[in-house]
């Protein structure tokens, strides 16, 4: 067997591990193993590549390759290990962005490399598509990162004619590709690159912070497609398989995610969700009466309950209060009170984000309820304790047809006998929508930082 065949076989092994990995990631038991399998497959592919012959010679610049890898590892490992779990969505965004950037760079370099040999039209087309998609993914991820990291406003950024301008930008990109295909000028490639950067930014700007995770999933799929395009150019089945796998499953996953929010994908991408409602809610809000109480009031209410459902949201994560919350849960259990955690599919900023945070705080897995279980449990609950959640318990999703979140499945906190709503202020939630639950006669509001308030409640529960 020749060396080339052996390497191709190893690539086949690697591609197979990626398929197995995705399969594994779909089940809670095998997910971690799946990730490990893919990592092994990746390692095999990278090692095999060192022995590959390109254009009839062994790889040049092996030293440079090793140096570049070392730089990547030194930066990536500590970042991935030690960044706080609340910042996880940003982290995924940035790692996706660099992948898109790498795919674009590979395509650009290949274009420069093969340009003098007058490549076939379809090769140039693959290169240009790789550049366009990879770069959009790169700059789009950068903006998504900035939004999640709150380097810029999380609200949708809109301006008149935005969708038309974006459509024109996209069309301009495609026309430019056609022009390059016809007359093959290298300089136009740089214009395409600049255009792709602008397109990525413009595409992401109107998408509100709450929807950014769906967007990251889509950009993730884009990067996959860019990698597949590079695979065509480089003649690599491995890149085609891995890229297409990610592209195809990523697009489906994106749709599943927007479905979990009760919205269509086009609604997520093009409706500038959450930009206009704030003004409407802001004026009338202060005039209406709400009932507020102290942490001590809350502890009394909780102390008399026999069944408590806790509904955590992103505010919990921001306040880093998941550990105190678990402590409260334990204290209540010591008093013989049943405690459950109701997890909305999109609680936090990514699907599953809240499960991860609570698991980190050692909340027992079996106390976590998914949406449907939670809603049946709430019918017999004495207290629903809402901590840092807002839109996911907003009844407007059920009965206000004009509300932008109408149709989103919610946790029916109002089914419980009493609702304790821990809140920093009367400001509306991430989607910027007024929440009727705050004015429900069942509801007691406890203002303050979630962590402070919970600490006080725990102390009061312990004392009683």
């Amino acid at each position: 067997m020749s060396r080339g065949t052996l390497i191709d076989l190893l690539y086949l092994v690697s591609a197979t591990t990626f398929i197995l990995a995705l399969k594994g990631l779909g089940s809670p038991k095998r997910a971690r193993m799946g990730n490990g399998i893919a990592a092994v497959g990746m390692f095999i592919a990278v090692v095999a590549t060192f022995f590959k012959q390109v254009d009839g010679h062994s790889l040049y610049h092996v030293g440079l390759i090793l140096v570049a890898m070392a730089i990547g590892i030194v930066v990536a490992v500590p970042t991935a290990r030690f960044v706080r779990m609340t910042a996880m969505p940003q982290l995924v965004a940035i790692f996706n962005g660099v992948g898109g950037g790498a795919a674009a760079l590979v395509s650009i370099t290949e274009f420069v490399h093969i340009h003098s040999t007058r490549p076939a039209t379809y090769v140039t087309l693959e290169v240009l598509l790789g550049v366009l998609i990879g770069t959009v993914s790169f700059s789009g991820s950068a903006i998504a990162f900035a939004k999640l990291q709150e380097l810029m406003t999380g609200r949708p950024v809109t301006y008149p004619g935005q969708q038309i301008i974006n459509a024109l930008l996209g069309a301009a990109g495609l026309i430019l590709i056609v022009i390059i295909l016809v007359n093959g000028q290298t300089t136009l490639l740089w214009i395409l690159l600049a255009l792709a950067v602008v397109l990525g930014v413009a595409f992401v700007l109107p998408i509100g912070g709450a929807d950014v995770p769906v967007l990251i999933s889509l950009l993730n799929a884009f990067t996959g497609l860019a990698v597949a395009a590079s695979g065509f150019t480089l003649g690599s089945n491995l890149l085609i398989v891995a890229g297409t796998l990610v592209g195809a499953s990523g697009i489906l996953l994106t749709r599943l995610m927007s479905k979990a929010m009760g919205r269509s994908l086009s609604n997520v991408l093009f409706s500038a969700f959450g930009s206009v409602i704030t003004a409407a809610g802001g004026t009338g809000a202060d005039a209406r009466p709400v009932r507020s109480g102290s942490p001590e009031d809350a502890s009394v209410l909780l102390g008399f309950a026999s069944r408590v459902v806790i509904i955590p949201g992103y505010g919990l994560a921001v306040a880093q209060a998941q550990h105190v919350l678990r402590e409260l849960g334990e204290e209540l259990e010591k008093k013989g009170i049943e405690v459950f955690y109701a997890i909305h599919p999109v609680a936090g900023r990514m699907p599953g984000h809240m499960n991860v945070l609570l698991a980190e705080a050692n909340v027992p897995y079996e106390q976590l309820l998914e949406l449907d279980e939670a809603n049946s449990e709430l019918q017999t609950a004495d207290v629903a304790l809402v901590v840092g959640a807002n839109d996911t318990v907003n009844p407007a999703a059920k009965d206000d047809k004009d509300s932008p979140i109408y149709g989103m499945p919610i946790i029916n906190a109002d089914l419980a006998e009493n609702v304790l709503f821990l809140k920093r202020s009367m400001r509306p939630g991430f989607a910027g929508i007024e929440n009727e639950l705050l004015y429900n006669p069942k509801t007691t509001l406890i203002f303050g930082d979630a962590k402070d308030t919970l600490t006080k409640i725990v102390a009061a529960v312990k004392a009683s």
Partner: protein
Amino acid sequence: MGNALLQYATVLMLTIFVGVEIIAKVPSILHTPLMSGSNAIHGVILVGAMLILGSATTTLEEVLGFLAVILATLNVVGGFVVTDRMLEMFKAKPRAPAAKKDEVAS
């Protein structure tokens, strides 16, 4: 359009179906780890980046290829480590003695 292109197109088509089939039934709590895991998988562009830098003949190509390898390595390594860290949290933990599962269920 050569035979090679046709072969790549075949692989592409088949893989699209595999990709869609394979994640059709994923519970929503695993959406994030799945996204993160597939994010690491497209880091396989590292192989492409190595080939590009490994065949670079001009300074421009060397610089671009070098950057590509750095970015791709970030994608691969960061992607796998973050996903592993997420999934680590999903494993079953020993429960606090105060309430056993049976008591909660009763």
